[in-house]
């Protein structure tokens, strides 16, 4: 089984200071890969670097075997990588349906199956498809955000803290959906603050600190590791 996405020794950041000091990871097609770590560890930055939003000074990124290091987002998106940012991840003045349409912007041909998939995955969106996305609740907005990225029918989906700021009920719903997405054949790589919950689902886990890898393994293994628990999972229940 070959990896969908690999990153080797990523070094880089915004402007002069490096946020990433050597991050490596690999995601295979069946994986739910989770990146956790303390604040400022560079988790979101790593995700952005994979998507071409952060300048890399060193390191290599490959997608489906091809080198995409330094490529711009609009070159990466057609290759099958979808990205859901943490903030500003919907178009508030566009309707739900239009948001999804933008997600499929680069696709030609019939995309009606993609709509069906998103609406069956997120039924509340089907009801509110003509409402401006900005009028939805937090949890529903997150559904729009993920749905937008799914319209691409990507091979791998990158999610930056998908459950931040959501109520526990929604958190569970979102994680359930993510598992469903993965079962449908899409690899998932997500950064999560809800480390314990996320790692339970993870077939591959990475703990980052100070911009570099500290621990890796399957999610349950990391959860069981006392050193990981002590250093990075803190007192989270």
């Amino acid at each position, binding site marked *: 089984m070959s990896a969908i996405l690999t990153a080797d020794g990523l070094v880089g950041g915004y402007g002069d200071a490096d946020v990433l000091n050597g991050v490596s990871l690999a995601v295979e097609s069946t994986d739910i890969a989770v990146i956790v770590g303390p604040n400022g560890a560079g988790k979101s930055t790593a995700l952005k670097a994979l*998507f071409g*939003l952060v300048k890399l000074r060193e390191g290599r990124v490959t997608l489906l075997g091809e080198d995409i290091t330094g490529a711009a*987002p*609009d070159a990466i*998106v*057609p290759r099958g990588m979808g*990205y859901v*940012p943490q903030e*500003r*991840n*919907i*178009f*508030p*003045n*566009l309707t739900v349906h*239009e948001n999804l*349409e*933008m*997600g499929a*912007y*680069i696709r030609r041909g019939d995309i009606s199956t993609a709509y069906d998939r998103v609406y069956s995955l997120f039924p509340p969106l089907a009801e509110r498809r003509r409402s401006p996305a900005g009028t939805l609740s937090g949890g529903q907005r997150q559904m729009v955000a993920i749905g*937008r990225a799914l319209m*691409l029918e990507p091979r791998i989906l990158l999610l930056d803290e998908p459950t931040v700021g959501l109520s526990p009920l929604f958190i569970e719903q979102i994680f359930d959906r993510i598992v469903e997405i993965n079962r449908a054949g899409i690899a998932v790589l997500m950064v999560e603050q809800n480390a314990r919950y996320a790692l339970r689902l993870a077939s591959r886990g990475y703990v980052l600190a100070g911009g570099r890898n500290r621990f890796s393994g399957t999610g349950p293994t990391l959860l069981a590791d006392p050193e990981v628990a002590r250093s990075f999972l803190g007192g989270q229940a």
Partner: protein
Amino acid sequence: MIELINFYLIPGIVLGCIYALGAIGLSLVFGILRFAHFAHGDLLTLGAYFALAVATTLAVPALWALPFAIAATAAAALLLDRLFYQPLRARHSVATVIASFGVALMIRSVVQLIWGPQDRVFESGIRPPLIIGDFRFAERHIYIVAAAAAIITLLHVFLTRTRAGKAMRAMSDEPSLARVSGINTERVVAWTWILAAALLAAGGLFLGIDTQVKPQMGFNLILPMFAAAILGGIGKPYGAIAGGLVVGLAEELATVPIGGTALVPPSYKSAVAFVILVAMLLWRPTGLFRGRVF
């Protein structure tokens, strides 16, 4: 009351339509390209002169010149962007604002070079006004309002039914997310200029028909256009329509004499837009309809 409607309300609406046409483009440019485009008024002037040139050379009625004027103004806008704004795109918006200030002057001087500084008018002759009951409607006013309404309807269709239009709205909402979705930002920028230029060409034509065509015509509108755009909310084209009408009506109605004197003496009419502008910026910079703030 009748005088109110004939001499203040109707001109206010006509002026408001023209402001709206300018403000929509200004709002879109502000929302998508992220800078205050000070040459917007002078692009309107350019549109008017293109229309005039076509109307006189082909000897057609003014409104028929519109498609040509739109094409020419759109080409000019794309060229200006390519030459003077695009090279500065990565820099702080101040650089592009100053550049647009310079572009405004350049357009005006080219217009004066080619067509001279004197006032010109569109051939129309004197037409009797349409009289319905006590209300008088100048024929050209009817054309202008009807044409503006048609154009705005087309705009609505473009923004809500076409892929390019939706991409524009998306980019105006969240430019980085638009990029992340794979939308080609430079293509959207081009569409923005074409759209803004088309609206300006129409606005310039209408203003020229309503008053006259002169090199200062567009620049005189820049404050009201900004006021309208900010009133409606930056990045909200529909808000800009409302904003334009409000500013146009406010300017006219403020000079209505109530018991002898008006709220605003006519010589200070252009201050009305400014007061609206500053008031909005201080009180509610997102505009009445909650647009972007930077």
